[in-house]
Every structure is written in C-alpha cells, then in structure tokens.
C-alpha cells in the first residue's frame, strides 16, 4: 500500500516563499489564507545566531487527530496516506481546527478580497462558494495524485502529478513520493539523511519529514 509523504531539506530551503505562491496559485485559496507557509525563525544568542526557514502545511498524518474528531466524516484518511476533506459534508464546526497541532486548517466564514471591497478578475473567476464556512487545508494537490493513479505516472517524479509546491521549489528542498517503496526518491533520501517529524511525540505520525543533516 502506498503512503505519500513529503521531505523538506531544511539545509536547502532559502525562504523564498515560491512554494507559498505556487500553492496559492494552484489552489486559489481565499484572501488571507495560505495552506502552505514558510516561517522565518531567528534563534540563538549573539554571536551564535541561527536563521531557519521552516515550510509548514498539513502534515497528512498517519493517525490524524482531525479525522477522529470530525463528527461528519468530512475528513478522511485515504488509502494512499492523504488526509482529505469533503466540502459537501463539512459543517464548519472547527473541531478539526482545534485538533490539529500544526495550525494547518482554517475556516473562512465570508468572502474577502485581497484589495478591499473590489474583487479582482482572478478572484471572481476562481471563487468557490463551496469552500465558505467549511474547514480547509493543504490537499497535497490530491487531484494530481489521483491523476497519477489513473495514468500510471509517479508523483514526485513526473511534474504533472507532483504537488505544486514541490514542483516550484527553486532549491530542490522539497521532495514527494511513496515512503513504502524503498526505491522511491523520498525513501532513498531519508535513508541517507538525519531527519525529524514535527510534534511526533503527540502520536500523529506526520507525513512530512524535515531533513537537518547527512547520516
């Protein structure tokens, strides 16, 4: 059985936010909502100061707390590891938002525009009323993953079936693939590197691996 995961090499990320923009463009998220963000962390004490760019989004957990609390079964964990939301079932109760320890989910209760009252042409064209009042988050570009299943192409290798953020990454920091396939790009990369998953102690089995050093 496949389990799609993402790898993010923190050594390579330069904080350019191209993945953020690519996600916004690919998914037409509402104004003020970013399914993917890159945080700029400055830590340490002078003179030993560090700067880390930390891309974050839905972790597509193996044991997603958002799924178990959802009263409507709108949130489901798919057989390929993706955590999906059915906007037609969701009632917008926000229980999943509270359950997610990664701040990955958001609910927009009314339409807002990027520039005040006036709606841009692109906003008007891509506005989806079905996403108002319901929970939403990164989908790992699930339409592309579904297309891969239908066409036999490989997510993480073939760009047409790879998440937009991974395709856009200018430094090659992001990878995507099936961790249950030992020959996949992500399995091989993880075998060669030291990595962690965020808040692993909470038992969520997140599907995003952050690489911080060579093995």
């Amino acid at each position, binding site marked *: 059985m496949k389990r799609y995961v993402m790898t993010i*090499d*923190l*050594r390579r990320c330069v904080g350019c936010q191209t993945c953020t923009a690519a996600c916004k463009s690919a998914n037409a998220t509402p104004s003020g909502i970013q399914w993917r*963000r890159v*945080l*700029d*962390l*400055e*830590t*340490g*004490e*002078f003179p*030993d*100061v*560090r700067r*880390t760019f*930390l891309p*974050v989004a839905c972790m597509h957990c193996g044991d997603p*707390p958002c*799924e*178990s*609390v*959802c*009263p*409507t*079964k*709108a949130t489901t964990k798919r057989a390929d590891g993706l955590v999906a939301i059915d906007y037609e*079932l*969701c*009632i*917008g*109760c*926000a*229980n999943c*938002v*509270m*359950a*997610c*320890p*990664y*701040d990955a989910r958001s*609910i927009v*209760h009314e339409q807002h525009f990027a520039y005040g009252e006036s709606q841009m042409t692109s906003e008007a064209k891509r506005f989806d009323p079905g996403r*108002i*009042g*319901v*929970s939403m988050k990164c989908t790992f570009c699930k339409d592309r993953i579904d297309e891969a299943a239908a066409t036999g192409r490989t997510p993480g290798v073939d760009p047409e079936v790879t998440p937009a953020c991974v395709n856009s990454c200018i430094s090659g920091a992001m990878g995507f693939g099936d961790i249950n396939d030992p020959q996949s790009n992500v399995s091989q990369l993880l075998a060669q590197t*030291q990595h*962690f998953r*965020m*808040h*692993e102690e*909470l038992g*969520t089995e997140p599907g995003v691996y*952050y*690489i*911080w*050093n*060579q093995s």
Partner: protein
Amino acid sequence: MKKPVLGASTLAAPKPQKNWDWRAASNFIAGGAGGALLFFASIGGFEPAPTRMAILLALILIGCGLTCVWFEIGRPLRAMNVYRHIATSWMTREAFVALAVFATGGLAWLLLQPLLAWLAGAAGLAFLYSQARILAANKGIPAWRHPRSVPLMVATGLAEGAGFLSGVAFLSGATIGFWQAAVLLALIAIRALIWNGYLAGLTVEGAPESALRVLNGIASRLTLFGHVLPGFAVLAALAGMPGRGALMFAAGSMVVASGWFLKYTLVRRAAFTQGLAVVRIPVRGGGPAGPAVKPGWKPVPGAKAG
C-alpha cells in the same frame, strides 16, 4: 554583549484559538452544568415541584448551549451531518446523547416517573462526560488535551449542577437536607483537588507559557470564590446556622459562577495552540546543527547544539 533569543517568528509561537468563541464556550458552560443538574434532579429526592423546576432548568441550559453552538458553525443547515461519525467523534456522541437527554428529560418533566428521571439523569451525566471528552480530544490545544482536563470538566460540571440544585431548592422553598449539603461540600473539595492537580500536571508536563500564565492568573480567585467561601457557607449551613437555605443558595451561586468562569477561561483565554517547533536546527555551511526550538514554550531541557 549577550542578547536574549532574537524573537523567533510569532507565527510559530502558540496563539489563542479563534474558532470557538463565546458561543462554543456557552455550550460547555451551560451544557455541562445542565447535564449535571439533570443528574442531581433525578436523585435529589425533592418534592415534585422543585424536581420539575430543576429538570426544566437543566433542559433549558443544555438547549441554550446547543443553540449557541448551532449559531457558531459555518454551515448550520447541514447540522444533521453531526450524527455521521459515532465511532470516534465525541461531538457525534454528544449529539446522540443530547437526543436522549431531551427525550427522557422531557418525559420525566411531564410524568415525574422515577425510572424516566433516572434515565434522564444518566443521560445528563453522559452529556457532561461527552463534553469533557470533546475538549480533551483536541490535540492542538495543550491546555485541553491534558488527561486531567476530563476529570476537571466533569468535576466542575457536577459541582455546578449541585450548586444549581441548591438554588432551585431555595427558590422553590424546598428543604435542603444534610446529604444534599454534604454532597455539595464534597464536590467543592473534589473540584479544588482536581483543579490543583490539573494545574500542577500541566505545569510539569508542559504547556505554552501564555496558557500557564492565564491559568495561574485565575488560581487565587477560583480558590477564594469557588472553593473557600462556598465551602465555609456550606459548613455553616451544616453546622445549623440560621438561614440554611440562603447559605446554600449563596454557596451554590458561587460554585456555579466560579465554574463558569473556569470553563470560559479554559475554552477561550487559556486555549493557546501547540505552535510549531524545530527538533534540530539544520546544518548550514560548515557549522554544527543547532538545538531544538519551540517558541512560546520553556526551553527544552538539555538541548545542545551539535
């Protein structure tokens, strides 16, 4: 010159949750008290009139809480979808239990039949427990997911229910017996113990500093107005001081008000998110890796670079 941490992005630090406002808090505040009141009304042994009044008040409290939640959800017209996930969702279970509460509670109010009243009482308890589990299931909010939040929510709900019953008894002119007063006193003591245990557990096991600051900030007021003063009032009533009913009414009112204050604080003000963390700062260039970073939490013990 050494400088402190250079202010890691506030985006990564725990933030107050903004999705459950006063309407969601009202469900926990009124619903929990109502469920426990239903339970105590069923076993209180009062005359028919105060029992009826207590059952009605319990149903009104639960109904108001659920109505508030209904006004909060993003798609209220789809509210019936809440019944789709009984296998794991405590919100679904709460919704099913609410049906039982209104069915049995309504019939008990109409017929005052003991078996129906007991069933309603059991449903009220189940409703209270479901609400406690809804909060605890939220892994994104450290102050809620702590295992001691469940006994805390149940204990304060029970104390509030007993407090309400004292008020109903006083207002309806019913006599408050020794056991009714003793139960309220015991519940005050239990809530005090559990509250202190919860706060200690949260401090030891870790929570966002902002959440701990809020909870520690209410500790003295909760102790004085929620435990010490009502405890003395009940003790005075038990000792036979004149105006027993009024003393119990005052104690009950303080227990209810302090419990609601506690729940509002927990649901709204202390509900900081987990925030984000980096387990190891990555190697960049020739230097070593850095220690863990968890903005908004106390420094990770023993964290070292390298």
